[in-house]
Structure formats: structure tokens, C-alpha cells
């Protein structure tokens, strides 16, 4: 105590450096930051830049929980976060984390909100009052007695926000709160953050990769790079400074990217818009956009048998959940298909049928015209490679090389062929230099590539990527998508499950939109992205570029900033 804060600051970081135990590289390095009361501050930076560490330093988890070497000083509400116990700091700092699953502790919505208040030893009557108020604030008042796991991902994050809000902290910290949510749920969370800030005057810190939502939410942006503050200023100024973002390995909001291209062509003057509404207003000052709808090339030869087919497949889980409803779909050799839909739309259940991990309750699943159930497990593994959302589930060997070669052990291929495949897979995925390293010693992006290499040695014709961009920063996500593009160019059939619509144009050709266990739309990606009524049905929303294109001219079907900018003469 006793530290005199500037009148308006709720938290300050002074020359803060921190090194995790067992690490040599500092996660934070000489960070100076002042967080004034009432502001919404965004923390951005590529994966590993120190965003989470900074968030955790605000409630003392770093360094008190993790240990390690900590230098400098962090104060929150006048309390030194190294000297004061975490449970005392929790009275002043509410935290909302990334993963809805692991941040829910108890078995009902109301007891979840009450958990921190009980730890803070508030009387039961006061807890009841606060729980009610917090649930009302996040619009969850009708579900107090429900089990948190029965809520949607977006509702679970709203519950986590209610838990933080109930403490009535002076500062609420959000660490990647929407990275695992579908676009509609993510929008719900960001809109709630704005509402909380307005209604309660709470100071908010958000770390996120979601450029579009951050631009329309935060007042100020702090850019971290390799643990250091690379820039700190108004959000508009930073998102509008493309060279700065490029250096920090960040992407601007799509609206900003499109207007920067227009500025390069002399069509846009003045500051670049960073929010969609500003972009739509700025369109009025531009010449009329041209219609844009390139011809769709056929993605397959209709005379050739599809490689994978579902015929009127329905599936009901043991608890009665109807996950698929008479789904019929064909995947053709050489397709690059994305499967879109909200969390729970049936995307993963559909894929599990292709992989013969689930047997349909009714209908049939075919591979090359034969029931998929007639193939053995190794046969399917040789035909279809599956890259899970969490690559770590695939890793259980001590070196990258043994991991990549592991699947070949149960094959009767000659040793020379096995060696050739392993070397080729390592080279294709740029992993040769890591061959003797432990897979878990690599970054998440590299671990994902190890998994892809381990699958490629089987030389499958079809590769299925399950939410490959979730939890990745923009560069990591693009690297994985570029890899899918290279594999597609080599003749592989690619299926990507995703709800990150913004990243997929330029990669996929066909989109399957799922909702409520049905295929709502099977169309070329351009048509699907512009069908807002269908996207709405499955809690997706059109991308900023699509919204701008349609505002510019209804006949404009642009999907990328380049296409949109190119349609203005």
C-alpha cells in the first residue's frame, strides 16, 4: 500500500519484466502501462507476444501462481500484485478466460456466479442479491438453476462475465474471450462488454485477435511484440496504421484493408475507417462500384462417382440429441469444401460419419460407392487424414521424427518406402530441422504441422481439418490455410470445418452451411457468403467485405478486400 496512483489510474505497470520458470525468453520485457479508470483497453499481438501474461499479471497469478522471475511493479487499486494474496486482488480484478469449459467450476448457473462471492465471505443474502443483478446484467436471468454445460458457448461466456461482474471489481480483464465462439456468440460477448463499460463504468482490458470486434469496442490499443509494448494509442490510429500492424504481425479489420487499397488507388483520402459503419458511410464519397460476380468454375466432373457420400443420414446421440437430420451430401475428388455453422450445428457429427467413428441411426455413408463401414480402420486411415482442433491429442512420441513415422509401423511397406515418406512429409511441412526435437517443445502452430506430417505419411486422398484456425493468431491461421492450399494443389481433397468466415475466401471453393443438424445450403463459397438469410439461420454473419460490397452495390459479390477495391473504377 501507500503507492500514490495518478488520480484516474486503476492499474499501472512499471518496468515489468517476467520470465516463466524453465524459460530463457522473457514473456514481458520492460512494460510500462497505465490503465485509467473507465477505459476499454485492447491488448493485441501475435501468439507468444505476452498478452495472456500481461492479463495474468493484473491479478497476481503472474508471478504468484506460476513462479518464475519477475521484475518491476504492478499495482491494481493501489495494491502491489506481488505483495498481496491473489484472493485479495480478486476483489478488485475480475477475470474472464478463453475456454468456456475450464472456467466453469460449479454445477448450476447461480452457484457459478456465487462461487467467488462465497470465497470473498459475503453473507448469503448479499450473494443472492448480487447473483440476481449479475445474471440480469448479462441477460441470463431465466437460467439460474440450469447446469452451465447445458448453455451455448456464448451463454457460457456471458456466465463467466456475470461471475466476474458479481464481484463488482474495479477492473475486468478478458483474455481471448471469443476465440472459441461462433461469430454471433462472439458479437454477443463484445456487445456485452460495451454495455458493461457504459452501464457500470467498469474499466476493461481485453486481449483478442478479433480485429473487427476490437476496432468497434476498444478506446485504446496496446500492441505487444515479443513481450514489449510496440505501440500504444487510440484504436483508430493503430488499426489505421497498416505498416505498424504488418511489423507486429497483425492484420487490420477487413474494412480498413479494403479502404487502404482504395487509398493506394487514390480513391480514398483521409484516415482509413476501422469500423464497418464508418466504412459504409465512407462509401458514399466514392464513385459507384461496378457489379462483380465472376463465373463459378465447376469444381468437379458430374460424371465421376463422389469420393464420399452421405445418403439421408440421421444421427441421434445416446441422450436423445438429434445431431443430424436426413443429411445428404457428396464430396468429390479434388474439392476444397468448407463446412460452416454455429457451435452444435452438426459439423463434427457429420465428419465423424465420414471417418466411421459414428454409425448413422439411419441412412448410409459411402466411400467410393461402398459403405464406409466395410473399410477397415487402417484402410480409412490411408484414405482420409483427420487433423483435430487440438493437435496435442495426436502427439505421443518423444521426437518429431518418431511421431511422423509412427503410423507406418503397423503397415507392411518396405523400409525404404517408409523412410521416403517420412523424409518427404518432414520436408513438405518444413520440419526437417526439428526432427529430433520433442513435439511439445514446439509452438502450437508447429505442433499442428507435425500432426499434418504424421497424417501425410499415410498418403491419404482426403484431408479433413477441424477448426484449424481456432486459437491461432492471424499469421498462424494463414500459414495453416496456405498449407491446405498447397495440399489441394497437389490433388488432395480438402474439407475444413470452421466458423471463421473471414479467413476462407481465396482457399475454399464450395461451402456447406449447416444448422440444426441439416445442410441449409450447399453452394459455391461466393454465393454462400452473400446469403445472409441462410447464415443468419446458423448464427453466422456476413463478413465486413460482404457487407461493404452489398452496401456499395447489391450486384457486387466481392469476397476479399482486393476484389472489392478492384470493383471501383
Amino acid at each position, binding site marked *: 500500500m501507500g503507492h500514490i496512483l495518478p488520480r484516474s489510474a486503476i492499474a499501472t505497470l512499471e518496468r515489468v519484466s517476467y520470465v516463466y520458470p524453465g524459460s530463457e525468453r522473457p514473456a514481458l520485457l520492460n512494460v510500462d502501462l497505465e490503465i485509467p479508470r473507465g477505459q476499454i483497453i485492447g491488448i493485441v499481438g501475435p501468439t507468444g507476444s505476452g498478452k495472456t501474461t500481461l492479463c495474468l499479471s493484473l*491479478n497476481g*497469478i503472474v508471478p504468484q*501462481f506460476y513462479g518464475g522471475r519477475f521484475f518491476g511493479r504492478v499495482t491494481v487499486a493501489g495494491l502491489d500484485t506481488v505483495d498481496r*494474496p*491473489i*484472493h485479495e486482488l*480478486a*476483489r478488485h*480484478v475480475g*477475470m474472464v*478466460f478463453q*475456454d468456456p469449459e*475450464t*472456467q466453469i*467450476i*460449479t*454445477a*448450476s448457473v*447461480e*452457484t457459478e456466479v*456465487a*462461487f*467467488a*462471492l*462465497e*470465497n470473498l*465471505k*459475503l453473507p*448469503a443474502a448479499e*450473494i443472492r442479491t448480487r*447473483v440476481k443483478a449479475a445474471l440480469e446484467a448479462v441477460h441470463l436471468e431465466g437460467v439460474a438453476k440450469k*447446469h452451465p*454445460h447445458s448453455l451455448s458457448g456464448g451463454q457460457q461466456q456471458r456466465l463467466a462475465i456475470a*461471475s466476474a461482474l458479481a*464481484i463488482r471489481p474495479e477492473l475486468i480483464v478478458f483474455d481471448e474471450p471469443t476465440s472459441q465462439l461462433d461469430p454471433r456468440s462472439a458479437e454477443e460477448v463484445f456487445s456485452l462488454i460495451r454495455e458493461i463499460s457504459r452501464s457500470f463504468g467498469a474499466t476493461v482490458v481485453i486481449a483478442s485477435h478479433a480485429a473487427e470486434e476490437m476496432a468497434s469496442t476498444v478506446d485504446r490499443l496496446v500492441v505487444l511484440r515479443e513481450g514489449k509494448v510496440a505501440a500504444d494509442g487510440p484504436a483508430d490510429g493503430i488499426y489505421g496504421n497498416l505498416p505498424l500492424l504488418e511489423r507486429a504481425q497483425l492484420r487490420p479489420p477487413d474494412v480498413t484493408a479494403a479502404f487502404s487499397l482504395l487509398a493506394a488507388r487514390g480513391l480514398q483520402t483521409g484516415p482509413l475507417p476501422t469500423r464497418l459503419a464508418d466504412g459504409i458511410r465512407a462509401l458514399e464519397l466514392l464513385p459507384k462500384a461496378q457489379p462483380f460476380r465472376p463465373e463459378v468454375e465447376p469444381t468437379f466432373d458430374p460424371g465421376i462417382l463422389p469420393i464420399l457420400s452421405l445418403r439421408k443420414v440421421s444421427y441421434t446421440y*445416446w*441422450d436423445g440429441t438429434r445431431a443430424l437430420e436426413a443429411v445428404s451430401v457428396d464430396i468429390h475428388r479434388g474439392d476444397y469444401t468448407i463446412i460452416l455453422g454455429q457451435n452444435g450445428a452438426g459439423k463434427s457429427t457429420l465428419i465423424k460419419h465420414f471417418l466411421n*467413428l*459414428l454409425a448413422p441411426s439411419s441412412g448410409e455413408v459411402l466411400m467410393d460407392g461402398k459403405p464406409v463401414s466395410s473399410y*477397415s*480402420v*487402417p484402410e*480409412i*486411415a*490411408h484414405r*482420409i487424414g483427420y487433423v*483435430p482442433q*487440438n493437435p*496435442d*491429442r*495426436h*502427439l*505421443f512420441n518423444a521426437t518429431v521424427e518418431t511421431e511422423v513415422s*509412427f*503410423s507406418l509401423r*503397423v*503397415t507392411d511397406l518396405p523400409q525404404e518406402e517408409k523412410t521416403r515418406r517420412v523424409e518427404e512429409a518432414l520436408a513438405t511441412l518444413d520440419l526437417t530441422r526439428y526432427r529430433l526435437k520433442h513435439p*511439445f517443445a514446439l509452438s502450437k502452430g508447429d505442433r499442428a504441422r507435425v500432426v499434418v506430417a*504424421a497424417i501425410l505419411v*499415410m498418403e491419404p486422398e482426403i484431408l479433413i481439418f477441424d477448426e484449424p484456425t481456432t486459437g491461432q493468431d492471424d499469421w498462424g491461421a494463414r500459414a495453416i490455410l496456405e498449407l491446405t492450399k498447397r495440399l489441394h494443389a497437389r490433388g488432395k481433397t480438402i474439407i475444413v470445418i470452421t466458423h471463421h468466415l473471414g479467413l476462407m475466401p481465396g482457399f475454399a471453393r464450395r461451402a456447406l452451411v449447416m444448422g440444426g443438424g441439416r445442410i441449409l445450403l450447399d453452394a459455391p463459397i461466393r454465393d454462400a457468403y452473400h446469403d445472409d438469410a441462410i447464415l443468419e439461420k446458423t448464427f453466422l454473419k456476413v463478413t465486413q467485405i460482404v457487407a461493404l460490397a452489398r452496401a456499395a452495390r447489391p450486384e457486387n459479390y466481392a469476397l476479399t478486400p482486393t476484389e472489392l477495391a478492384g470493383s471501383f473504377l
Partner: protein
Amino acid sequence: MMLPELQRVTRSTFFSRLDFRTKLMTFAYVSIVAALWDNPLLGGVLMLAILGACLGVGVSLTYLGFMFRVMTPFFLLLLLTHGLFNVEYVLRLTGHAHLTPVLTIPASWPLLGGRSVSREGLLYGVNVIFKSMTFLLLIPLCVFTTDPNHLVVGLVRLRVPYKLAFVVSATLRFFPMIFGEIQAVMETQRLRGFALEDMGPVQRVRVYAKTSVPVILSALFKAQQIEVVMRSKAFSGDPDRTYLEHSAMHAPDWIFASALTVAFGAALWSYFAVGFGSFVG
């Protein structure tokens, strides 16, 4: 396959509304009686009564079926072991000079050749299976019908240290997560071409051992994440924390507990005084 939710049944019944301390008393009394009774007929009746109670409170058939499937190999092993090898103890229990053979293994078979599976040994094996089933069924009956928060409060009222009570409830929450992780890892193994059903036992054990690596790592990672979340919510393990829920023994608790105590006393008296529940071969 989705895994059964191991944590809670939500149907509101007389039993589920009882205080957790009353349920613990039920658990203790029934367990003691099940352990004492060696009579397979009575053991079976007791097991069926608890099974009926489980179904009555809403424990799903899916969960019960899952539990039975998992336990079946152990039960078969128990049956065979008692039928073949439990000779001295069963002779002492029955007071007979010989056991009744129902199956004799040909003398030419290695190790077991010439041994007989006895009727009394099998019956004793059945009795042990019923005991085991009774214990196993008491868990969903008493634990799954209790909101984990009531469970914590109930244990704290029984003077169990808060940290320990919380660990019990957290374990219940963690189990489904770990099972889900194991299932996901096993699925990825299949997708890399490993057909466990086609493998010999040694190879299968090797694959299971490999599987444990990501499961353990994931469990440790998630446990650490949960601890970070709990600390951020001011959790310190302080026993003086307050509770939204309160634990109270109401009239139905006292009536049920009293009736159960009388029944328990009667069972003890009849067992020790007149041998009611003893093994009959």
C-alpha cells in the same frame, strides 16, 4: 459415442431432496449390511433394491448399462476365481466336507487340469458380485442425486475440511472431462490406422501406454487452467468462506434416518444373533 454425464441426475425425488448427510448415512448402513451378508439371495435382493432406487431417482439406464459393461469382465473373473479356487473358505462357511463340482477341467489342461468349479464357490462368487454391484450402485444413488454444492456444504457440516470437500466435488466434475479426453485420444489413434480390436494384448497395452501421454498432459494442463480460474475467483481453501446454499436436516431427513437406523440395527442384530444373511451353499 457421447459419454454418459457422470456428475448429476436432476429428477426431483424424495431421496434426491434429502440432505447429503442422510444420503451418506444410507451409503454407510447399506454398505455395511452388504459387506456382512454372504447369502447370495439376500445380497441379490439388496442389490436389486438399490438398483430400483437408482432407477427411481432417475439414474439413466445408459449409465447403468455403461457401468455394467465395464464391470462385466471383472465379474466373470470373480465368478471363475471363486468357483475354482475359493475352496477352504467356502468349506468353512458351509460346514461341508466336500464341495459340489459342476464342471471339471480335463486333466490334460496345463495349470488348471483336474480342478473343479464348485457350485458353492460359484454361489459365493455371485454373492461377491452382488456386494460389489451394491457398492457401485450406491455411488450414483447418493452422489449423482446431490448438487455438488450441497455435497460440499454437507461434508463441511460433517466437519470434513473444506479443501477436501471441494476436492471430492471437483473430482466428480473432472471425471467426465478426463473420459472425454481419453475417448478423443482413442479416436485419433484409430484415425492413424491403429485398430485396437485387431491387436494382440501386448500391442494393445503398448498403444494404451502411448495414449496415456496426451491424456495425462491434457489432464495436467486442464487442472492447471482450472486452478488459475479458481484462484482468480478468490479461492483460497479458507474454511471460513460463506455459502449460498445451506445444509439443513429437515423432518423427512430425520424420519428417513430414524427408519434406516432401526432397519440397520435389526439387520445387525439378526445377523449376529440368529445368523440371518449367512452364506447358504
